[in-house]
């Protein structure tokens, strides 16, 4: 029987299959952060339970950390500081590997896991964060869970799950200049909607996907949840193995060779079937921007704001976003630029921004930030001299964290402020109460920073 990548990942992690179709699934790795773990630790302690596999966990603070230059001495909001302190204390009490805020390895959970080799192909990986789908880029079954499930994994190293359906999204061909993984992700969500992948695991296939770097693959899998799929996966190949090799926690020497030979068995068998298939041509994808308050409210940058035609949802979105039907997207003026997040906070993203803004200046009325996804991304960018290019252009070059992606820290939009953002969600209030978010790629955000309005980076 021919199996898909997902079938193989699922089958290899079944501890026990119940008669009703539910399975006890083994979880190889759990990453935790300060927002969704304290209640799980509390539940564990209250029930007098211990961690099943402390070595299978990694903790790093990201949602609440300050990203300004003085972060060591920054006065954080009291409630944020309590969450950070609680994470550190819990890790000490329960013996979990913890990366502190001032460690160069600190960063956003979904950037740190892969960097450290904590994320490997063939694994099951969970985190109390919906963007855990990011790790699927390695051919791992990775998905976000709620805090009760975090506790379940802590206590048992398993979850009770039902097999999901297989969906394949194939993107064939060559991406045009100025088009990136983020544009693929947004184009897919525009095509299938934010519930299009519900109940499915999406496998991304096709030559355009194969030619993406690991950074691009992570961006794409990260946004699977915005298409409704808890997990997005890409079969591991030489690009994957090259990225994984030599990472601090990846296997070494003969162990690595043994692992690679196993990982090579994971790709979908010829002739395996999917429950749903979608085909896109890379050449048809042009830079995307969102206009509304859901990631599916997305259009090519050459488009215009749609008319509501009596649709209450669109009317509400246009009112919230302060846009008029028929307005050209390229005429929409912005106030802020945010480059960062677990979607686009990696070295390739910083390079893409530097490439666009080199020798140019951020528009006078725009405040533009680049927030690297981890201390290691920051260090590498500085080694490459990218920080200076950004600073010379007028960008604020900040310390790593989730920052303005979800505004749980001091970084947020003011009411009605309009932001060109490389993050993943444009929900109402996501980047700050009444803030207005337009999602796009790093190159597109960089172009908007320079001109001060939404801009087709291909024409800059």
């Amino acid at each position, binding site marked *: 029987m021919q199996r898909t990548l997902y079938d193989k990942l699922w089958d290899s992690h079944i*501890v026990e299959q119940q008669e*009703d179709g*539910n399975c*006890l699934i*083994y979880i190889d790795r759990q990453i935790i952060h300060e*927002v*969704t773990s*304290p*209640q799980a630790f*509390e539940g564990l302690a209250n*029930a007098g339970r211990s961690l*099943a*596999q402390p*070595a*299978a966990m990694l903790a790093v603070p990201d949602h*609440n950390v300050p990203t300004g230059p003085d972060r060591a001495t920054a006065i954080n*909001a009291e409630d*944020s500081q*309590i969450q950070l302190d*609680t994470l550190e204390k819990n890790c000490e009490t329960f013996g979990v590997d913890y990366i502190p805020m001032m460690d160069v390895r600190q960063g956003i959970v979904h950037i740190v896991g892969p960097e450290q080799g904590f994320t490997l192909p063939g*694994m099951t990986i969970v985190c*109390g*964060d*919906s963007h855990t789908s990011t790790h699927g880029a390695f051919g791992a079954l990775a998905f976000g*869970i*709620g*805090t*009760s*499930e975090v*506790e*379940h994994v802590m*206590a*048992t*190293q*398993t979850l*009770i799950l039902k097999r999901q359906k297989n969906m394949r999204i194939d993107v064939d061909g060559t991406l045009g200049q100025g088009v990136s993984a983020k544009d693929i992700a947004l184009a897919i969500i525009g095509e299938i909607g*934010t*519930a299009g992948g*519900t109940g499915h695991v999406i496998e991304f296939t096709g030559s355009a996907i194969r030619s993406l770097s690991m950074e691009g693959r992570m961006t794409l899998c990260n946004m699977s*949840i*915005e298409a*409704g799929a*808890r997990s997005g996966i890409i079969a591991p190949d030489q690009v994957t193995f090259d990225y994984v090799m030599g990472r601090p*926690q*990846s296997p070494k020497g003969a*162990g*690595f060779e*043994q*692992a690679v030979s*196993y990982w090579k068995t994971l790709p979908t068998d010829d002739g395996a079937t999917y429950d749903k298939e979608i085909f896109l041509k890379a050449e048809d994808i042009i830079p995307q921007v969102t206009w509304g308050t*859901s990631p599916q409210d997305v259009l090519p940058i050459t488009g215009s704001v749609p008319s509501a035609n009596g649709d*209450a*949802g669109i009317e509400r979105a246009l009112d919230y976003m302060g846009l008029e039907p028929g307005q050209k997207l390229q005429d929409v003026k912005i106030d802020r630029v945010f480059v960062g997040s677990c979607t686009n906070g990696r070295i390739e993203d910083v390079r893409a921004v530097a490439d666009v803004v080199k020798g140019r200046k951020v528009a006078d009325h725009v405040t533009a930030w680049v927030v690297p996804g981890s201390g290691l991304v920051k260090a590498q960018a500085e080694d490459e001299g990218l920080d200076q290019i950004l600073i010379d252009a007028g960008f604020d070059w900040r310390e790593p964290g989730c920052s303005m992606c*979800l*505004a*749980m820290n001091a970084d947020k939009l003011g009411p009605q402020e309009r932001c060109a953002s490389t993050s993943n969600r444009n*929900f*109402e209030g*996501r980047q700050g*109460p009444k803030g207005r978010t337009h999602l796009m790629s790093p190159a597109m955000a960089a172009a908007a920073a320079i001109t001060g309005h939404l801009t087709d980076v291909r024409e800059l």
Partner: protein
Amino acid sequence: MDKFIRLSAVAAPLPMSNIDTDMIIPQQFLKTIKRTGLGLGKHAFTNIRYHDDGTERADFVLNQPAYRAAEILVTGENFGCGSSREHAPWALKDFGIKCIIAPSFADIFYGNCFKNGLLPIILPQDTIDLLMDDAGRGANAIITVDLEKQEISGPDGGVVSFEIDPYRRHCLLNGLDDIGLTLQKKDVIKDYEAKTRLSQPWLFKD
């Protein structure tokens, strides 16, 4: 966990699609380290429930006298999409909601409900439309949800049945803590680990 067996309560109509968990409970209320006693209920739906000055918006259904004590929500498709925050079901539960009826739910939110004694029910859109009409009748809109029989009865006595995963139903009916249940399978888990340590030794760091 609280049991859910049978509920007769006011149902509030919230006919919006794609209500995300940021809308159910915004990020500024996630800065807690506790699960209970959070008072999250008063912040549920903050952005559509209150004006900027903190006063209630009369147009939001749960602010209207007939629905202030609603325990059932009838809503649109893809309810609970976005963030995995379990604070969303915590906030709904703290408000008093015990059952949500929609044409579809986002996967993570759907699973989180069951962990907190909340019953999410999926029904076809045309059935939802009828229930939305029922719910529109204010305080007279008493709907009865019977998990044992897997049936919903409307105020006029009409009955519709619903599907639900038998294991999840069992846990809700009995208020079971599934961590306790899984821990009873410790030996099977240990066997799996021993087997995997041999075939994929790189997965184990200790």
